[in-house]
């Protein structure tokens, strides 16, 4: 031992400056065993490596470099490089450096002590991959976390579901907590089968450059301390804070991304606009034919179009390229940071600008962040964080149904109609005088896409402040912590349906103000101590107060007086509204974490919530959790290749509440009345209920973490069983009740699942690193109970009115139901006398939610160059595609080519069992395919399994030598590709992930914005 140290000392004295040197050696433990997986970092640079299986290493460093050797469980050593390049190191076992995890309420816990599954995502993949939407960036990274990338525009909302749907109709999205403060992630409006906009959610405000780490707490046990809102899991975001340093650190990051529409359309291009096999004969005829592509075979002849211009009857090239633009995004950020023992701070600023693929759609965000921390007086520390975020969005695209939705009209354009004709003389879809929508079809509800993108407006800006103050007093074994955080934003929205729009010639506008405030206060009194006997404890008790207000007030008007003056005052008819939703939850909680030595851990928590939204006589509920973890690798002798083993289990219960004002029937007045008289109506569309009680869910979880060959191979597996009961279900009910929905009190749903992750690092050499990680999760979801006598409830409906999303007892949540083909006993389709397939039973046609998901992550480093890619997959889901259904009606779908020339005879039998011989004449195939759309949902339900190449990242750390003499600490450049390829999908024409909102009725799709493929460049400079 002393020999080594003296060698080092000797070498230290002999250092002299030179360029580069090959340094190599072996790292051993005090007992002389070689240590694999020791982390070696060249101080002051980003380069480093791990020791091999035999503890050896070899790397090229500058001669005056210092190396830091570290490994969990050993004291780190810093050493300079000896002149002969040989550096053997012995690491001393010492006070174990424990890996810690930030858990609920910001309590930092020993990783070994955690008795539930959790995932940590470091900032690097987030900042490199740089999805504008933080939620989407989590896709494929963690087992059990199902992220749906919904095509709804920039800064649209995202859907993140952890371990399946828990609640039958409530919110299933996790709670987002930033530096200990829950933030508002309300989806601010989304589209449904009748169209609408996605106004985004709370996640778009977060700048990925500010994020240090994301921890995903998956189970109930993880959430017991955050209360009911955490029952869907918690995503803890830890942001960067000031670090110690004698100078001010600067980090610059610049990112540029190009987005392209991923064209998934594979429509027929053989037949053009028209009906019955004939091209339009006249301008009026062309206008009447609109989007119908049941015309003649495209033969290049000259055919009149709706604008009176004759054009060759032939397929026009590149419709999609011409309509969707190349989008581009810039995101630049700068952060200054500094700190010493008493005080640290970090000041960050970022600016993001996105021009979207839909023309005239853009989004901007500026964020300012100041985090400070320090010790005010002895033992009293404070952290103050302020974030100010400005978001500005223009022309969010309309989705789903046809009015104002550019995607609808664009998707169905007949092959022979050029987009220029639709753009019209002014290029914006207006008539020559510029005053009216240039209508392409007699159906007024299908809006000209250029008119929709040029004249419709859906703008919003958001000012948001998220602030928090945390004080912590520690004295010996006792600590007291208090915290106040608030998330406040106001948002103004302006929505315009312009004058001259076919379906609304007078035009209309809405100006809306949203104000949301969520305030959380909590304090914790605790005591923690480790006794020399090996026993340690952390007991705490505390309380929490959560108050949220959400107010929407607005003015609307329709039919403008003075053209072009877009104010409510300038409208003939006006209306206004004001709504306020309030919710408060008060809670008391407490817990104890006990451990014996470093291998046995026991955690207990309890919480009591009081909910304002429930009846006062049934508004509170206590719920406990218990967890234990056992690090058996510390206790028993394991085979040599096995370096770590932990077994954990936990049981937890969580309760939940309902939306405000769900208890009583209320009334309001309609508009401005009539003939001077007020008009009254019932406010509720959902039947209220005075007898609601808190819902509960219970979860039991069992998991195993193993590591082999040092850290070369890691394996984590968890199984869970979660039972939700007394769930309050908002169920669609027959309109004949007078209402749309009712609250049903005893819903029950089970989720059982298994999730696992394997990571393998086969190569950890000086110049080479290779890490391969695979994660997957399977969730078995079953709806157990929907209330007395209720077998099935409907939660969403397709615009075609033929397919519905249901929860049904004994089935997984969100199944697709609709009319199937009528079939005989042998399974043949039964046709009527008219040759049309007959409608069969209303039955289950598919599963709207994928139940087996996962991702493969691979990263390879060669010297300073690294390459990573992420492939993710989802299986076990289906989709009802209204886009395809309408493509049948309009003759765009390739299937509709059958029968155009010679007619068609459906393959099947008649009602009497004879072979069907009823022929549909070539001119009548429209009726046949339209009949399918309006009667048979089964035809449009597709297997939505997919595999996507989600991301490829190449990054390069510029050699430190290049800027040795400057103050630059490091420069990294990287290139990123997102959503590069749909490797596997069976859904025709649309992306298998398409949906038009982030609500529970998943499995429906209709004319969304196409998914985008992005290519980006990122530059990171540290000063």
């Amino acid at each position, binding site marked *: 031992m002393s020999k080594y140290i003296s060698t080092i000392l000797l070498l230290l004295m002999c250092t002299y400056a030179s360029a580069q040197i090959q340094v190599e050696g072996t790292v051993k433990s005090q007992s002389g065993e070689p240590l694999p997986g020791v982390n070696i970092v060249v101080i002051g640079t980003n380069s480093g490596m791990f020791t091999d299986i035999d503890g050896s290493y070899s790397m090229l460093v500058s001669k005056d470099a210092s190396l830091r050797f570290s490994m969990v469980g050993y004291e780190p050593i810093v050493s300079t490089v000896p002149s002969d390049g040989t550096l053997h190191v012995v690491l001393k076992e010492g006070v174990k450096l424990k890996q810690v995890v930030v858990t609920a309420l910001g309590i930092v816990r020993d990783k070994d002590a955690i008795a539930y599954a959790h995932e940590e995502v470091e900032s690097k993949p987030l900042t490199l991959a740089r999805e504008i939407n933080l939620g989407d960036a989590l896709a494929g990274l963690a087992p059990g976390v199902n992220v749906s990338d919904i095509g709804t525009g920039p800064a649209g909302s995202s859907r993140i579901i952890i371990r399946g749907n828990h609640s039958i109709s409530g919110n299933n999205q996790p709670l987002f907590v930033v530096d200990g403060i829950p933030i508002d992630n309300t989806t601010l409006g989304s589209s449904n089968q009748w169209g609408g906009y996605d106004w985004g959610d709370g996640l778009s405000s977060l700048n990925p450059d500010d994020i240090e780490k994301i921890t995903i707490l998956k189970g109930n046990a993880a959430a017991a301390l955050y209360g009911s809102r955490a029952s869907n899991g918690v995503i803890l975001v830890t942001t960067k804070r000031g670090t110690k340093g004698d100078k001010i650190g600067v980090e610059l990051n610049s990112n540029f991304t190009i987005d392209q529409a991923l064209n998934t359309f594979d429509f027929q291009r053989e037949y053009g606009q028209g009906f019955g096999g004939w091209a339009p004969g006249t301008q009026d*005829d062309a206008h009447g034919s609109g989007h119908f592509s049941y015309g003649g075979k495209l033969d290049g002849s000259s055919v009149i179009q709706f604008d009176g211009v004759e054009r060759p009857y032939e397929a026009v090239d590149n419709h999609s390229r011409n309509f969707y633009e190349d989008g581009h995004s810039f995101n630049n950020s700068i952060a200054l940071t500094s700190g010493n023992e008493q005080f640290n701070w970090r000041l960050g600023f970022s600016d993001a600008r996105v021009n979207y693929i839909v023309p005239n759609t853009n989004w901007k965000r500026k964020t300012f962040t100041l985090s400070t921390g320090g010790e005010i007086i002895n033992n009293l520390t404070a952290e103050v964080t302020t974030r100010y975020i400005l978001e500005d969005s223009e022309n969010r695209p309309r989705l789903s149904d046809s009015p104002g939705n550019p995607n609808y009209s664009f998707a169905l354009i007949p092959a022979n109609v050029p987009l220029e004709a639709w753009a019209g003389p002014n290029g914006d879809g207006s008539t020559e005088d510029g005053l009216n929508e240039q209508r392409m079809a007699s159906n007024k509800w299908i809006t000209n896409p250029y008119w929709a993108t040029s004249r419709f407006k859906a703008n919003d800006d958001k000012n948001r402040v998220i602030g928090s103050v945390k004080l912590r007093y520690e004295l010996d074994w006792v600590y007291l912590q208090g915290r106040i955080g608030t998330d406040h934003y106001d948002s103004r929205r302006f929505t315009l349906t312009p004058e001259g729009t076919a379906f609304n010639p007078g035009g209309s506008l809405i100006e809306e103000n949203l104000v949301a405030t969520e305030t959380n206060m909590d304090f914790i009194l605790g005591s923690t101590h480790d006794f020399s006997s090996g026993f340690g404890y952390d007991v705490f008790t505390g309380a929490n107060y959560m108050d949220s207000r959400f107010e929407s007030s607005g003015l609307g008007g329709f039919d403008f007086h003075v053209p072009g003056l877009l104010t409510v005052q300038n409208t003939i008819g006006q209306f206004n509204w004001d709504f306020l939703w309030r919710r408060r939850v008060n809670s008391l909680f407490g817990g104890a974490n006990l451990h014996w030595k470093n291998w046995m851990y026991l955690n207990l928590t309890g919480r009591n919530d009081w909910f304002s939204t429930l009846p006062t006589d049934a508004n509170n509920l206590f719920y406990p959790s218990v967890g234990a973890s056992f690090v058996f690798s510390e206790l028993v002798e394991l085979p040599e290749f096995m370096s770590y083993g932990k077994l954990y289990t936990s049981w937890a219960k969580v309760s939940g509440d309902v939306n405000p004002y769900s208890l009583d029937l209320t009334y309001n007045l309609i508009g401005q009345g009539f003939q001077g*008289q007020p008009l009254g109506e019932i406010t509720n569309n959902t039947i209220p209920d005075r007898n609601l009680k808190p819902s509960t869910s219970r979860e039991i979880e069992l998991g195993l973490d193993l590591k082999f060959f040092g850290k070369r191979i890691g394996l984590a597996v968890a199984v869970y069983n979660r039972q939700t009961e007394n769930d309050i279900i908002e169920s669609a009910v027959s309109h*004949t009740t007078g209402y749309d929905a009712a609250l049903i009190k005893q819903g029950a749903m089970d989720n059982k699942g298994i999730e696992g992750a394997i990571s393998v690092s086969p190569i950890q050499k000086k110049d080479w690193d290779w890490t391969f990680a695979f994660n997957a999760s399977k969730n078995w979801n079953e709806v157990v109970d929907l209330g007395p006598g209720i077998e099935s409830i409907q939660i969403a409906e397709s615009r075609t*009115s033929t397919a519905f999303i249901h929860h049904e007892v004994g089935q997984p949540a969100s199944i697709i139901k609709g009319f199937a083909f009528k079939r005989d006993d042998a399974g043949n389709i039964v046709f009527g006398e008219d040759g*049309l397939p007959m409608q069969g039973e209303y039955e289950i046609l598919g599963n709207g939610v994928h139940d087996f998901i996962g991702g493969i992550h691979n990263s390879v480093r060669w010297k300073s160059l690294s390459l990573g890619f992420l492939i993710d997959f989802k299986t076990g889901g289906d989709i009802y595609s209204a886009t395809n259904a309408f493509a049948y009606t309009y003759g765009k779908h390739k299937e509709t080519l059958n029968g155009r020339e010679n007619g068609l005879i459906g393959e099947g039998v008649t009602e009497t069992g004879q072979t069907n011989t009823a022929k549909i004449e070539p001119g009548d195939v429209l009726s046949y395919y339209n009949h399918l759309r309006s009667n048979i949902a089964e035809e449009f339900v597709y297997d939505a399994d997919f595999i996507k190449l989600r991301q490829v990242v190449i990054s390069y750390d510029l050699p430190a030598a290049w800027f040795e003499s400057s103050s630059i600490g490091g420069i990294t450049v990287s290139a990123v590709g997102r959503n590069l390829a749909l490797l596997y999908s069976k859904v025709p024409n649309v992306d298998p992930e398409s949906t038009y909102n982030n609500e529970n009725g998943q499995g429906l799709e209709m004319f969304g914005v196409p998914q985008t493929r992005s290519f980006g460049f990122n530059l990171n400079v540290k000063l």
Partner: protein
Amino acid sequence: MKKLILLIPLLFLYFSCDKDFEEINTNPNAATDIAPELLFSTSLLQASGNSNQSEGADLLNVSCYVQHIATTAFNWQGDKYLFSPFNNDVLFSDAFRNEVKSIVAMLDKAKDDPDKTNLYAIGRIWKVYIFHRLTDMYGDIPYTEAGRGYLDGILDPVYDKQEDIYKHMLSELEDATKAIDVNKPFNWEPDFVYYGDVEKWQRFGHSLMLRLAMRMVKVDAALAESWAKKAFDLGLMTSTDDSAFIGHAWEDGVAQNGLAKTFETDDNARLSKAFVDYLKETNDPRLYIFGSIADTLEHKGMPNGWDDGMLFDSTGLTDMETFSRVNIDMVQRWSPTLFLGYAESELLLAEAIVRNWVSGDATEHYENGVRAAMQQLVIFNEWFIIDDSAIDNYLTNNPFNPADDEAAFEMINSQYWVATFLNELESFANWRRSGYPVLTPSNYPGNDTGGLIPRRFRYPQEEYSVNIENLNEAVSRQGADLLTTRVWWDL
């Protein structure tokens, strides 16, 4: 520091209370109660049909079934007997959530209030009006349990047999009109139909009773006869002053005429050839009020069931410009909705007399009906005046012959068909029960009825999703859920 620690128990107390929770959970922008009159007013306007309902049901489908309107455009599915789920469903889904919800809540509030007995009685009459439109279009529907999701917690209302609904509606009309106390004041302000004239409400109830009675002529003539007699004896409408209609207003929403939006935004509707031909054959002055056309042209109806190609093949015309449009002044946003006019009441009475169910002069009542149908147009526009001499001429030139029953039925019901132009659901119901006028169905390729004029709407597909057991029971009773299946009274 020690003092601070003493505060901790107080903090616990503060965080564990539920003070103010009741108040926090009270919607500050809604009332916890409301006068039933305000719900009644709303139900009157709602029953006149909002723009979704009127476009989907009345115009795009029924007006074409009954051959008032025809077009080559595809979005008017009814013209070609094509089935479109949304337009077929919208009447059902809207009516139960709007007018049914309002009237059921209103009746519940007024039921036990001794000061509101007249309001309650009139509400019962109005409820019958609301439901007869629905059952006529769909057949068996939820009736006794409808609209009671909150009041009784009924989430899957039973479908009542149309026969039972009719019998109940008729007895309701009898009981409710009798329950009206003409000496008691009625708060007139929210009554946008009769402005508090309770006797008019009584006569409306009796004429509605006659309408329902005559619906049953095919299925149960004896029952029809007894109710027609009763309606007559109780006292029918006596002049156009008794006609039930509601005015509308320019503003969007419930106050607006439900038909207006369609005509503002969709120029595809043309008067049907069958309709124009009938008006022309009888030299009917109403043609020039119902229809509009360029001065240089002659009124011309569009055949039903044609597309642009068929139009071109048959006429060489490339557009519908030369065919008669609906006069926009019949369907402005402020144009009234006629619920039940004196004209209809008189025409039905004429038929009852021809059938010898009540005694009277059939010709006199027929002529009253025709005269009233022409005079009532003035409610749409003050210029829509047909003077008495023109009406006299018309009656002279188209003499009514009560001696030939079938001929009389044909004339009466053809007049009814003209008189109910734009009250399409009623026109369609009366055509189905009477068979007049004789309409020739179209047979557009691939239509969903096999070339038959539809006889009803299909149940909304959503009902299969949310109320399937009750619906299946109705379907098994009534027959397959098709456009061509006939409702109980339509044999």
